[in-house]
Every structure is written in structure tokens, then in C-alpha cells.
């Protein structure tokens, strides 16, 4: 299966994300709250671009089954954005005036360029790593998640069954609409690299 080949052959980057100081500190609960707040704000900016990429992919879908899967995924991203709004309200973050940092801008420009300009297979290949990586990180961090963990809700969301189901869905879609081409491999790997850079950006902003 294409999605397995891509995940396995790029697993070095997924492992680097799990070992990234930002993710390590998020997992053991020592991450400074102001860094988490800044990360949530950047992530909300990213998710708005992610949502648009889904909508563009939906517009490109030729058959009803694919369209329905995209509708489900769009609902999933919308739910994720709602979670960010809850965080933002609790933490006093203004999500409407987020200025993206360089890593966030590079990632969202890449996603939107691909979704507007390139084909559906490449678009799904650029969207899949985000879903699979966060499911992977959520599951990997879950054993450290005590009831009093400061980032429990974040870990439970991404390590949860519902998010894992969405990641499975987007991977199934990638198998259906993507081909094993140089471009698809490149988009998948670059998206994972953007994820890694995103954590670095969150640590320095």
C-alpha cells in the first residue's frame, strides 16, 4: 500500500519529531505554558490553511465516495479548530491576529500551492503526514498522560480512537487517488519536514 511505503520510508522524520525537544517537553509536561500558547496560535493558523486545502481537494474529487470522505475529514479539521478555540478562550489567545512564523508560513504556502496548483494525488500526499504524524505522537505520548498532566487534553485528542480513524481515512484516500511517483514521494516527505520545522519554530517563537 502506498501509504505504508511512504510512512515507512520517511519514518526517520517521524522519529525526529517524537524526539524533538518541544514534543518531549509536551509529553512529560515540562513545556512552558507560553510556548504551548504560541504553538496553539500557530497551529490554528496552519489548520485554517489545512481546511482550505481539504475544500480544494473536495472540489477536485470526481466520485461521490471520495467527496464524502473529504466532507468527513473537513468535519474533523473543523472539530480540531474548535478545540483550538476552546484553548484560546481559556488561555486568552487572540486567534484572529496570529502572524505566522517562518516555518508556519512555509508549510501553509506549500499546502495551498499544492492544493491550488497540483493534482489531487499530490494534494492528499501533502495532507496525509500531518494526520498520521499527530496520531503517532498522540499514541506514543499517551502512556505519560496522568489525570493531572497539563497537556492531557491535547495528548488524548491526538492519541484517541477518533483521530486515528481520520488518519486511517486519509491514508485510504491516498492509496486510492495517489500514485507512487517522484512528485507524490517528494510532497509527502517535504510535508513531514515541514512538521519537524514547525516544532522548531514553536520552540523559538
Amino acid at each position, binding site marked *: 500500500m502506498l501509504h505504508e511505503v511512504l510512512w515507512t520510508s520517511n519514518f526517520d522524520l517521524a522519529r525526529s519529531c517524537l524526539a524533538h525537544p518541544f514534543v518531549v517537553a509536551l509529553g512529560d509536561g515540562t513545556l512552558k505554558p507560553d510556548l504551548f500558547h504560541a504553538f496553539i496560535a500557530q497551529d490554528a493558523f496552519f489548520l485554517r490553511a489545512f481546511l482550505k486545502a481539504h475544500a480544494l481537494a473536495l472540489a477536485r474529487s470526481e466520485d461521490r465516495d471520495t467527496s464524502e470522505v473529504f466532507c468527513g475529514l473537513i468535519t474533523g479539521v473543523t472539530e480540531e479548530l474548535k478545540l483550538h478555540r476552546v484553548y484560546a478562550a481559556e488561555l486568552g489567545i487572540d486567534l484572529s491576529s496570529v502572524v505566522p512564523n517562518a516555518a508556519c*508560513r*512555509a508549510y*501553509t*504556502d*506549500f499546502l*495551498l*500551492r499544492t492544493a*491550488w*496548483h497540483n493534482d489531487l494525488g499530490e494534494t492528499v500526499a501533502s495532507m496525509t503526514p500531518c494526520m498520521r504524524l499527530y496520531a503517532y505522537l498522540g499514541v506514543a505520548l499517551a502512556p505519560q498522560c496522568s489525570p493531572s498532566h497539563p497537556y492531557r487534553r491535547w495528548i488524548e485528542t491526538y492519541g484517541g480512537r477518533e483521530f486515528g480513524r481520520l488518519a486511517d481515512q486519509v491514508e485510504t484516500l491516498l492509496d486510492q487517488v495517489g500514485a507512487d511517483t517522484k512528485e507524490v514521494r*517528494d510532497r509527502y516527505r*517535504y510535508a513531514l*519536514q515541514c512538521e519537524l520545522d514547525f516544532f522548531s519554530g514553536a520552540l523559538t517563537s
Partner: protein
Amino acid sequence: MNSLVRNAGPLWDEATRSPFLDALATGRLAADAFRRWLAQDCLFANDLMAFQAILLAKAPRDWHKPLLGGLAALDQELDWFESSAARLQVDLDILPHPTCRRYTDFLMRCAYTQPCGVLLAILFGVEASYHAAWSALAPSGPYAEFIKRWSNPDFGAYTTTLGGLAERNLQEAAQEHFNEVLAHERDFWKMAWEG
């Protein structure tokens, strides 16, 4: 001076001067650095072609002639890039450097999402900063052919036309995007120099 250039402040100099160009002009540039730059600039020009084509499709009638002229010139430039790369045995079937990619992803995202006044300011930034960077160099040494190519008066006249059109059609986000172009230009020269 064009108001977009004037209001960009120090970014203009940062985008149009670089150790890479200084070394190129004095003939001390390492061959590897030149080859790296050539391959990445060719990848960039390919996406710039798509950007300019989308801008043309959105543009009002009175912009067509300069934009079509720009597209035809870019087509010739791509021919020239490809023949230079073949002559210097530079492989063009490579992945873009992340810096090149960030620049072209920005251009393509804007092409689809920004109004044409903003796109014109972007194109003016790309072309005028490139022309200014090369025009500052004395056309001599092993890379004289390249310096002459991008400092020639026809290219200069084209950038002046674009600048005039951009100033007459300024939109709110034009300066912000013009400045972003300059930041990408600065980073591109840095990438060419440092790898």
C-alpha cells in the same frame, strides 16, 4: 524612485547585494556555488512562468502587452538556462532547495489567492530587484555573459514599466507582499552563497 522600493527601506539593499554576487563579479566564485545557483534559479524560473501566466489571466486589458512581453522573455530565458546548464553539465532534474521552494510556494499561493494589483507588485519586486542586483556589477570576468544578460537596458525598461503600472494600481496588501518578495530574494542569494 518607485514608492514600493522607497517604502521597503533596508530590505531593498539586502535583496540586491550579496557576497555571492561580489565573488561572481570579481571572478572568485567557486564553480560549485555557481552551478548550484544556476540549477535552483532555473527551477525558480519554471514556477515564475506559471505565476506570470496566472497573473496575465487575471489582468485587465491594458496590462497585457508588458505581461506578454515578460512571458516571452522568460521563455527565452528558460531556453538559455537549459542550454547553459547542458554546456556546464548542471543537472536540472533535482529537487528544489528548501529556500527556493519557500519562494516559489509563496508565489504560487499568491497567484491563486491575491488580487492582480498585489500580483503585479510581486512581479515588479521579483524583476526589479534581480535587475538591480546584476546592474550593480561590472560586466567583466568569467561571468560577464550573465551580468550583461540581466543588466541590459531592455530588461531595465521592462522593470520600469512594471513599476509604473504597479504604482498606479496599488492595493492595500501590495507593499507587504513586495517586502516579502525582497526577503525571499535575500534568502535566495544567501542560499546560493552558503549552500
